[in-house]
């Protein structure tokens, strides 16, 4: 098999300037075209892993490596990682008052095209409209300020809109399903599936607490994070087991080690 899309080895990380480790030796491989679900109790380190992959400056990696398409990304700035093809749909997206979605996304699209190759306004507008239609978003949304005053569900949909416009090689979706009503969940899930169909090599790391979304986006692998480590990995049926039995059995297993 060719090199994985994403390969994480022995990753340890903590909040910069503080003591306690949050990630305590994470190993994870995502192949091109695969969907991996990452589950686990509150506070186990899922969002921290997502943010470390994206290069959040609040965290310090103390050991291990993250290879993306075979390249070490730990030395890359967040914007370089993004332009290389990593996308993070945030659990809590930032609000940017005064900056419209259209203006923001056009800047982001042009940031990955070379100077002089910028997309013209009309071409961009066409792409944006098309993606918004796919996600059944009101066209007026493009003029709204990024996440400013958005409902929880609107924020999540806006994250997937950005993914659709930016076309990454890897999408890390951090609880994109929480806060979505059942219709919105279906729309967002089918949006992600459409992106996978359009790009068969797209890798997805889907962080979630609920099996619900996995009925729409079928995972190839399911992992459970406990106290900063991947404690268990399995097929799609692992999600069923977690839904039925919770994390207790894993807590006991981890404690027994």
């Amino acid at each position, binding site marked *: 098999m060719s090199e994985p899309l994403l390969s994480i080895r022995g990753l340890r990380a903590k909040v910069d300037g503080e003591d306690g480790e949050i990630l305590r030796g994470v190993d994870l491989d995502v192949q091109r075209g695969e969907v991996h679900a990452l589950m686990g109790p509150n506070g186990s380190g899922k969002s921290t892993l997502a943010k470390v992959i994206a290069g959040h400056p609040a965290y310090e990696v103390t050991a291990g490596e993250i290879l993306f398409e075979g390249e070490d990304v730990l030395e890359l700035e*967040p*914007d370089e*990682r993004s332009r290389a093809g990593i996308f993070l749909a945030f659990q809590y997206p*930032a609000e*940017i*008052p*005064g*900056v419209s979605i259209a203006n*923001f996304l056009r800047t982001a699209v042009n*940031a990955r095209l070379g100077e002089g190759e910028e997309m013209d306004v009309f071409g961009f507008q066409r792409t944006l409209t098309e993606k918004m239609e796919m996600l059944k978003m009101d066209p007026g949304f493009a003029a709204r300020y990024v996440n400013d005053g958005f409902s929880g569900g609107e924020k999540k949909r806006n994250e997937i809109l950005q993914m659709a416009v930016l076309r990454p090689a890897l999408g890390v979706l951090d609880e994109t399903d929480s806060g979505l009503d059942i219709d919105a969940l279906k729309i967002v899930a089918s949006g992600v599936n459409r992106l996978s169909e359009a790009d068969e090599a797209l890798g997805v790391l889907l962080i979630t607490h609920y099996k619900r979304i996995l009925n729409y986006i079928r995972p190839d692998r399911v992992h459970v994070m406990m106290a900063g480590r991947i404690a268990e990995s399995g097929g799609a049926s692992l999600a069923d087991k977690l839904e039925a039995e919770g994390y207790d059995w894993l807590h006991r297993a981890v404690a027994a080690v």
Partner: protein
Amino acid sequence: MSTMTAGPAESTLAAADFDTLAGGLTEPEAIAEARTAAWERFTALPWPTKKSEEWRYTDLAKVGFEALTPVVPAPATAEALPADVRDVLGRSGERAGVVVLREGRVAHLELEAGVARSGVVLCSIRDAADRHPEVLRRALLEAQPGPAEEKLWALHLALLGGGYFLYVPRGVEMPAPIHAFHIVERAGTLSSAHSFVYGESGARAAVIDEFLSGDLDAETVSLHGATITGEGGAGIEYVALQRFGRGVKRFSTQHVTAGRDSRVVTFNVALGGDLSRADITSRLDGPGSDSEMLALWFGDSDQHFDHHTLQHHAAPHAHSDLLFKGALTDAGSSVFRGLIRVDKGAQLTDAYQTNRNLLLSEGAHASALPNLEIEADDVRCSHGATIGQVEDGQLFYLMSRGLTRRQAERLLVFGFFDEVLGRLPMEGVRARVREAIEEKIGL
């Protein structure tokens, strides 16, 4: 009246006497008198020093006024529109008229025929002195600057002759703005221009003053004065868009007089020059008057911007709202010093003053000094100022979408400015200001 075109008086300010300043021009009496008196006041007054509160952060001693060559503007000429002006106009929305000034001299002036027929007057200050001496004199006398600005104001009046005069008669609503371009080309000069805007009762007018130059290789000073008057129920929108090149130091003194139930919006944008100071006074002169004062600045390199404001409530039931926002990077610096003054009789005043600053670099520095002076007892006033940095969470969010740190910061500045831009009533004017800001911050 002489038709000869004056160049710079062939002497420095230090060596100049009033006759050399006049440059051999014969001029209308109203102007000659005002200028003579101003010159005497200018020579008698000392330069304000850093000891005065108003000039504590902007050191006039560092400006070599004495070595500059004063320019006394000659009578208007009729030149073709310069290419860069045509370019801006081509991208701007509708307009009712255009004025081009070179070191204060009116070089081009046009007013849409329909607007002229409705009684609107647009001419050079010189012509106005001939044709409307009383109106001009009254406006200039009423604009009594505070002691801190008196020296520069006197110098401005001593050089008076440059600039334009816009008069909108009772009930006339101008359909589009007047767009004026103040061009400075000659390095080492001291020039001055006046923007005179007057709306009779019920009149509507909008003006955009754009200040521009190339990068000049010697210290050059551009003085500017504006008197903006709205009679009862008038609505006036005034924008000063300063995008001088390097080498230019600019001092603008603006006086707004808002009559009963009138509404006057001023919007100052500082982007260019080495030093840019604006003293802006809004006098709420009639009950029910409304003054909105807005400003934006973006400073980089070692640019220094200084905004000094007075919201003077002289009448009851008036409303004033000031919102100034500035962003700085590199070693840019800025000062905001604002005062709300409420006279004893100005009951039921509603007055607000907010200054927000965004610093993008360690070397940037902003000072904010909001102040209140209230003699009435039944008023609603608030003032506040903040100085902060961009939020890390926002920065990371934008960078995680592929924007470089610089792009992300600049986009955040744009977002920060948007609230102020959104308050400009005329869409065409707003678009022009937005474009100029975009050009400066380089998104």
